[in-house]
């Protein structure tokens, strides 16, 4: 009797957790999109919060691939077999290049989970994003945009954030060639490509990212991390020191947008 009541209590807990997060228990570990890097996740109270909107600004248009890769890796790290929705405008294939599935496979993601949605313009992009965030069952919704995006005003941003909260989905908003401005996002990041750890014979190593937390609704902003993607463990980690880094001051001088906004 005692045994069955304890198992019943366990089931109740499971049901409560599902009801709270609106997602199956195996995906996204209890409402957080984690990076696998203990320090990073702990500093954010568990990771990127599910049911919220997160913005990733490429520090320079040339960092677009780094910002996109970071968002894709975060999203594909967890979520089981749930699809990753990637929304972009049709002309971005010309400017940024097309999403390359073999490259995603090389990063350790499963391209079969990728669902690409292309729209004509930014307005249709936001309309599609509104539908996508309201669809429970995606690992994440990535919206890739370029430029100022005037259609995404505070109201539109709030609507997206509410949609994500109601459906329990997570929206990763990629902003390329745009300056940070006030929005309804839970966190706002600036992503820069970081020099990789040099392999033998001067070969470039695993992808590395410089992250700066520009804004966080639930805590102090301004923290910086340098993370390296470890494909074999499917996690981010501290890059091993190689001494080949450029000094931070020199790198900052190259960055067009600072942490002024937010």
């Amino acid at each position, binding site marked *: 009797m005692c045994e069955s009541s304890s198992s019943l209590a366990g089931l109740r807990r499971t049901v409560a957790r599902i009801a709270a997060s609106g997602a199956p228990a195996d995906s996204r570990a209890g409402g957080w999109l984690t990076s696998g890097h203990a320090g990073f996740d702990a500093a954010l109270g568990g990771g990127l919060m599910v049911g919220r909107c997160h913005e990733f600004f490429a520090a320079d248009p040339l960092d677009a691939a780094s910002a996109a890769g970071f968002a894709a890796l975060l999203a594909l790290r967890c979520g089981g077999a749930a699809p990753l929705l990637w929304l972009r405008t049709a002309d971005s294939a010309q400017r940024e*290049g097309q999403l*390359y*599935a073999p*490259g995603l496979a090389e990063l350790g993601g499963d391209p079969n989970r990728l669902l690409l949605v292309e729209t004509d313009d930014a307005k249709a992009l936001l309309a599609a994003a509104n*539908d996508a965030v309201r669809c429970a069952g995606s690992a994440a919704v990535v919206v890739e945009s370029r430029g100022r995006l005037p259609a995404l005003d505070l109201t539109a941003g709030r609507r997206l954030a509410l949609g994500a909260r109601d459906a329990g989905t997570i929206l990763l908003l990629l902003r390329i060639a745009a300056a940070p401005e006030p929005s309804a996002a839970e966190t706002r990041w600036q992503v820069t490509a970081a020099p990789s750890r040099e392999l033998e014979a001067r070969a470039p190593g695993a*992808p590395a990212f410089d992250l700066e937390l520009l804004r966080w609704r639930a805590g102090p902003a301004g923290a910086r991390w340098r993370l390296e*993607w470890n494909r074999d463990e499917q996690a981010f980690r501290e890059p091993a020191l190689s001494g080949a880094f450029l000094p931070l001051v020199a790198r900052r001088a190259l960055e067009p947008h600072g942490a002024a906004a937010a």
Partner: protein
Amino acid sequence: MPAERWNRTAPRPPDAPLVFTEKVRGALRIAAVAPDAAALGLVPGMPLADARARIPALTVVSHDPAADAAWLDQLALGCGRYTPLVALDTPDGLILDIAGAAHLQGGEAELAIDAAMRFDRIGMTVRHAIGPTADAARALARYPAPPAPDEAAAIRRLPVAALELEAEATRALLRAGLRTVGDLASRPMAGIAARFGADAARALRRILGDEPSPLAPRTRPPPVTAERRFAEPLASSTHAMAVLAELAEEAAVAMAERGKGGRAFRATFFRSDGLARGIAIETGQPTRDAALVMRLFAERIDGLRDPIDPGFGYDMIRLAVPRLEALGASQLKLEGGAVHQAAAGELADRLTTRLGRGRVRQYRPADTHIPEQAQLELPAADAPPAAPWPNVEAGEPPLRPFYLFDPPQPIEVIAEVPDGPPHRFRWRRVLHAVRLYEGPERIAAEWWRRRDNQGLTRDYYRVEDVQGRRYWLFRHGLYDEKPGPRWYIHGLFA
């Protein structure tokens, strides 16, 4: 027919006969004439200059066979109200297989009268005939025959031209004194085949009904249909959508009985003036959820460039399910897994309906070494099942970029030695100094697929510049293949 189509769209002065012209060997010739022009002695094939010399006040329009074909197709869609088996008899005929369908209109004669009335209402003149076979009906409609007591006699009284043989064969028949189909039918078939060719014998057998004359219907009859007819035409689109929702429920019940679900749905709104408007949607997974189908229809109608116009009202609405797939009774998982998968599929369907088939895509691997061909981007609506991607070696950094440029973008490269890795490169007017590089990874052209057995080898380099950004560059051609090979950037690594 071109003239009547034109009259629907553009007004013209009453005393200017209408002719259609097309360019034949550099000269404008008449391709078709309106009845009023024909009455003045203008015939197709006449040069336009001659016609103008005879009748200066001509309305000249360039002949547009594609528009005529589209218009005929529209008329065929409208004829779908009588029977699902409608075949086009280009350029200006429709053949309806009304076997077993005529009684719905009260009989063959009533059906013909109804059709003629509707065509008349949209300004089209029809000549119709009913025959035992498609070829016989077609011949009876196209060639004037003297009145006859029954169908068989009418066919026998048709001129031999109705067999539509080549001009030479027709002339030979006439020279032999055979003027009607009946004359020919009374001769032994073997003799006809020997003298006038096997084609003549086959045409004769078909018109007499001794040999089947197969019909190629415009669309195959869909396995599941639901339709509703109205005594009074329905003028409001809102009501029409409500009726469509009821039809979707009916179709869902019919599909559930068979254990099937629909992959494609087509709604046809028949207007009381004989025209019809068809709207089709597709789903990625078989479904019989009427609410979902209606959402997709609403999405499609919202996105239409020319909204549906009820005109004088709809007198019939039909919902057809042309594609069925097996769909068992579904059971939902306790923790909601099935619900979530269905939600993602539904989203893909909705976005496909709104943005177009090619705009919502999934990726599948392709077995080739050429990087830009190694992935297939397929519409999510009919992507094949997930396939495994090539395995990656543990411990290696990613060897393929996250973003790929297709076509690759040309760059200027400075290398230390001509054959060596890039030292500096300029892309989009920005100079990048290379810090780390790996390569070359040599990828040869697929000479076994190319007819000329040519193609340049590419030397790929993975490079990282001093800022830490990683690029995928290649030199197109080896130095012994081509003097001064160009450099390109092919992708960006994360």
